[in-house]
């Protein structure tokens, strides 16, 4: 580790500003672009910001989402059927920064990005006001060796996942390569499960806390309600709700229900 951490050349983006200002109970919401319909991405983002979400993860769909459970699989399939593509998503995001000011991350699998062109993807995302990217199947070696320059040049934060099985050495390395937050999985699972606070899992959170990482941590997977949100926030700076919100989008009049959904989790 004699190299200077590459993070030095980043400027503060909205994520960094958020984490500098607020250290507890941060709430992030995940949803799939193009679900339940096209042209709703920015409307939903705006409603979530108004309702009190602190930052957002906008998923772009992929045909083979191996890290996702049935709810997000279904939303991805539906979004693809609706015709969602990266090109279309970027068109929908043209208005983003006129209407939404909280940090936005894009989340999706590597192959669609590879086809779009990773440099072009990063440039375009940054131009539209995106702050970070989560690509679950882009490994650390490839990120560092091949792609990190495009993220850094565009001031985009790459978010890494950590699971209860991730080794301390690897967590250190992830901390070094990260410059916004680290995404702690509540268990080794796909999306859509429930939060289990076994002794094992509590030890894992405590272990990570004791490492005094330079990046904040956010817990995701299995956060579904106020109780699981609050428990997660005891161990990290905040938490992410995904599948549970995607399920809300399947209901009628979901736009009207967004404020109540966020309120029920936060308060």
């Amino acid at each position, binding site marked *: 580790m004699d190299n200077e951490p590459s993070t030095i050349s980043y400027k503060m983006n909205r994520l960094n500003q958020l984490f500098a200002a607020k250290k507890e109970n941060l709430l992030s919401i995940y949803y799939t672009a193009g679900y339940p319909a096209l042209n709703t991405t920015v409307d939903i983002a705006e409603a979530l910001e108004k309702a009190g979400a602190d930052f957002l993860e906008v998923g772009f769909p*992929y*045909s*083979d*989402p*191996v*890290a996702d*459970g*049935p709810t997000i*699989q279904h939303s991805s*399939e539906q979004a*693809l059927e609706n015709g969602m*593509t*990266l*090109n279309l998503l970027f068109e929908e995001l043209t208005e983003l920064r006129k209407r939404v000011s909280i940090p936005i991350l894009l989340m999706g*699998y*590597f*192959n*669609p*990005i*590879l*086809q*779009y062109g990773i440099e072009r993807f990063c440039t375009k995302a940054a131009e539209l006001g995106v702050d970070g990217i989560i690509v*679950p*199947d*882009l*490994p650390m*070696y*490839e990120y560092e060796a091949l792609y990190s320059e495009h993220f850094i040049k565009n001031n985009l934060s790459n978010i*890494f*996942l*950590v*699971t209860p*099985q*991730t*080794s301390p050495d*690897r967590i250190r390395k992830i901390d070094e390569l990260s410059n916004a937050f680290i995404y702690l*999985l509540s268990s*080794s*699972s*796909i999306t859509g499960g429930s939060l289990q606070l076994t002794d094992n899992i509590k030890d894992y959170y405590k272990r990570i806390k004791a490492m005094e990482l330079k990046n904040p941590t956010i817990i995701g997977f299995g956060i579904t309600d106020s109780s699981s949100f609050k428990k997660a926030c005891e161990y990290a700076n905040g938490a992410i709700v995904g599948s549970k919100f995607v399920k809300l989008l399947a209901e009628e009049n979901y736009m009207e229900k967004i404020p109540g959904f966020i309120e029920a989790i936060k308060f």
Partner: protein
Amino acid sequence: MKYGVNEHGYYGDFGGAYIPEMLYPNVEELRQQYLTILNDASFKAEFDDLLKNYVGRPSPLYHAKRYSEKYGANIFFKREDLNHTGSHKINNAIGQILLAKRLGKKRIIAETGAGQHGVATATVCALMGIECVVYMGEIDMARQAPNVSRMKMLGATVRPASSGSKTLKDATNEALRDWIANPVDTHYIIGSVVGPYPYPDMVARFQSIISEETKKQLVEHTGKQLPEYVLACVGGGSNAMGMFYHFLDDESVKLVAVEAAGKGVDSGHSAATTFLGQEGVLHGSRTILMQTPDGQVVEPYSISAGLDYPGIGPQHAHLYKINRAQYVSVTDDEAMNAGLLCSQMEGIIPAIESSHALAQLEHMTFKATDNVVICLSGRGDKDLDTYIKHFNY
């Protein structure tokens, strides 16, 4: 090996381990251990013993006389169809179950398309008394029903993959999801030279017995170690990689990999990956992949359930790109006719997958002195229904 994998898991531009962090510890454990275990004397002894006494190896290298006459060269069939369970898939399943035992795993998962790999995995799990769960696309369960029954009879649980296109790639997704949720006690026996590093290399090593034996047997038949041509069909590419493995560095040997063209490469119903694919990432490796311009994986088609996979193993992608092997494709009809021809001229009913390799002979011209080896990867019992329907017997 000149064409082997590098320390980061790459063959040229292809390979790697594009997996979510949840799978990292499982795959990393394998990466750290597989070569040590494979090179261990007790592992080798047990592997060799099972291949000999349980699988029935060495499989014969059969000099197909009537075929030789017809095609004007010395044609040999490497008879993987005579293996226990009826295909080459058992070689890999035996290797991986022994590895899983040494890693202390208590539970096995696998994906299957045609059901051959599922049957091979269920078989070795029965042999070792280990719990076995096989994921199979709902559509494949319907079209390969006898293999579903075989797996159940062998004691395996067969779980339908009902997501996405409900075929092999979705069964693979489901197996990966299972592995994510069971990171400590479970080993995933992948059925071909696909998946994240070290799988492509590990499976190739287990299948390399095919070419290792062929070299020796060819000397007995011809006095020469090296044939002029080696042919094999490619789904994910494991029988082909096993058949090519020990000939890769012998540059005089022409390697021919036969993909399934389905109803024709341009028909929209095809599985000819190198013709129709672009570079991409699926199931953990960077390879050549059938996909839309937006990077969504396209569902391939072939009459043969074992060949309709949208990708190929990363080492194949590399051999294709650098032209070490030639990649060709034959249609459903050509393959079916070749299956019939082989049945009636040699008394061997081949798996439809293997019939693809046989069909390629029609497109080649040989010198009378050429030695040509074709991997007969499996037997046609599982395909009788399909043959019968096709020829209206």
